[in-house]
Each structure stands twice: as C-alpha cells, then as structure tokens.
C-alpha cells in the first residue's frame, strides 16, 4: 500500500536578496530590507516528503536512516550555518527561498534513490513557506 512519509529538518543560514539584473533603486524597491548589503539570517525548516509502497518485511517506505543520512550529508552540510550568497548554487541565482527550495528538490531528486521524492516544503519563517514538486502539480 502506498503511503507518504514526511521528515522535518532545521538549518540556519544567511542571505541577501540582490539581483545583478536590477539597478540599485530597483533592488531596494523590490527586496526592501532583504537587500541590506550585509545580509541577514533565518532558521529554515525543511520538510521532505517521499512516497512508496510500504514494504511488508520492514513496514517502511524507506529506511529513515538512509533519508536522514542523505539530507545530513548532501543538504544540511551544504547549507547549515552558511552564507547562501557565497555558495556556487547562488552565484547567478538570487537566494530567495523559492530558489533554495528548487535547489534542495533537485539535490534530492538526483541523488536519493530509496523512495520516490514527492515534494519539498521550506519554511523561511513561521509566517511563510514554499513548496516544490518538480514539474508536477501539488496533489496533496
């Protein structure tokens, strides 16, 4: 039987929202306080949802140890306590939470094989969150 498993992780990082394609004024008006040249930080909450058939011999969709290990090594190691603007992923892209959500989805989509990646949900603060399911619509 198919079930969906969601695991929540926390990491903290700083960023500055600034687009080289915009003028100084346009950056200021678009990003407001987030355009402050010294940057600022957030405690991000990441929710990874995977799906699959529940295996009879284990009662699991996939072993949580594998998911935790992958996220720890490939995502939290990269982003926790970092300045996002200095990372290769954000040399060209603005480190908005939209873009970060897509970057994290792509890392999981490419590298995590034990279960099907359903979606990534990323909370920048308790007041806003972003969800990405690749090309797919969010069904649930």
């Amino acid at each position, binding site marked *: *039987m*198919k*079930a*969906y*498993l*969601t*695991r*929540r*992780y926390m990491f903290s990082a700083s960023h500055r929202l600034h687009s080289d394609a915009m003028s100084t004024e346009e950056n200021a008006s678009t990003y407001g306080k987030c355009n402050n040249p010294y940057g600022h930080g957030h405690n991000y909450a990441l929710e990874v949802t995977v799906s699959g058939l*529940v295996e009879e*011999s*284990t*009662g*699991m*969709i996939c*072993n*949580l*140890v594998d998911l935790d290990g992958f996220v720890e090594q490939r995502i939290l190691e990269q982003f926790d306590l970092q300045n996002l603007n200095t990372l290769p992923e954000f040399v060209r892209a603005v480190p908005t939470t939209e873009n970060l959500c897509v970057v994290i989805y792509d890392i999981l989509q490419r590298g995590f094989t034990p279960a099907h990646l359903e979606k990534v949900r990323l909370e920048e603060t308790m007041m806003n969150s972003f969800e990405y399911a690749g090309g797919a619509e969010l069904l*649930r």
Partner: protein
Amino acid sequence: MIYLTRKAEFAASHYYHNPDLTPAENQRIFGKCNNPNGHGHNYTLEVTVKGEVDPRSGFVVDLKQLKEILNREVMDSMDHRFLNKEVPEFLTRIPTTENLAIAIWQRLAPKLKAAQLYRVRVYETPDLFVDFYGEA
C-alpha cells in the same frame, strides 16, 4: 467539497522486529528500534474527512460523533498500550508509523457514514509523520 480535520493524541510503546529475519538483520535494519523491551512516543493523529455541507445542520460531519468513533476505534485500543503486544494488527505487522496510519485508516473507513475518509496523518514525533489516503 469541504475537508474537516480532527486531531487526537495518544501515547504508546512499540518496537520493530521481523521474526523472518535473523537477529543480526533485525539489528542492522531497525537499529535502536529493535530493542524488544520497546520504547514510546506521543503520537498525534489527524483524521481528515471530506463531504458536502448538510444544508440543515451546516455540518460536513457531526464532530461529536467523529470524536466518539476516534475514541472507540483508535484511542481505546491504542492509548497507553504496547502496540506489538496489545493491538491485534501488530501481532503480525510491524508497528511502524506507516503501518499505524494504514491500520487506523482500516479501522475508521468502514465506520464513517456521513463523510468520507480522506486522509489519516500520524505524527510519531513533531518532525516525522506519515500520510495515508487509502489503497487507491
């Protein structure tokens, strides 16, 4: 269509063990969760039903009835229990969060009359939950 979610909390203990596997395999797959004396969680259950609003009552479902069904079908048999030993489903199935969501769905689905069961969500901890939407 309106979706309505009712929440309930229960505390239970469990351990993970497959008798068809060797002790070494059980240990490798389930790690600390394989301790036969068990360990416990405060589970949070979210049951979502869907249906049209009844024009007379303004309800999708009578919450009091839903609560009674949850109490009878889930809380009475799982709250403050050792799942492996006291809940019939888990005499033969491993009481993972996945299987718990499925078992709760199977208990509730046939009992709901007015509204249709849409989703069972079981939180094992605040940072781990499983959703089950039925077999379809």
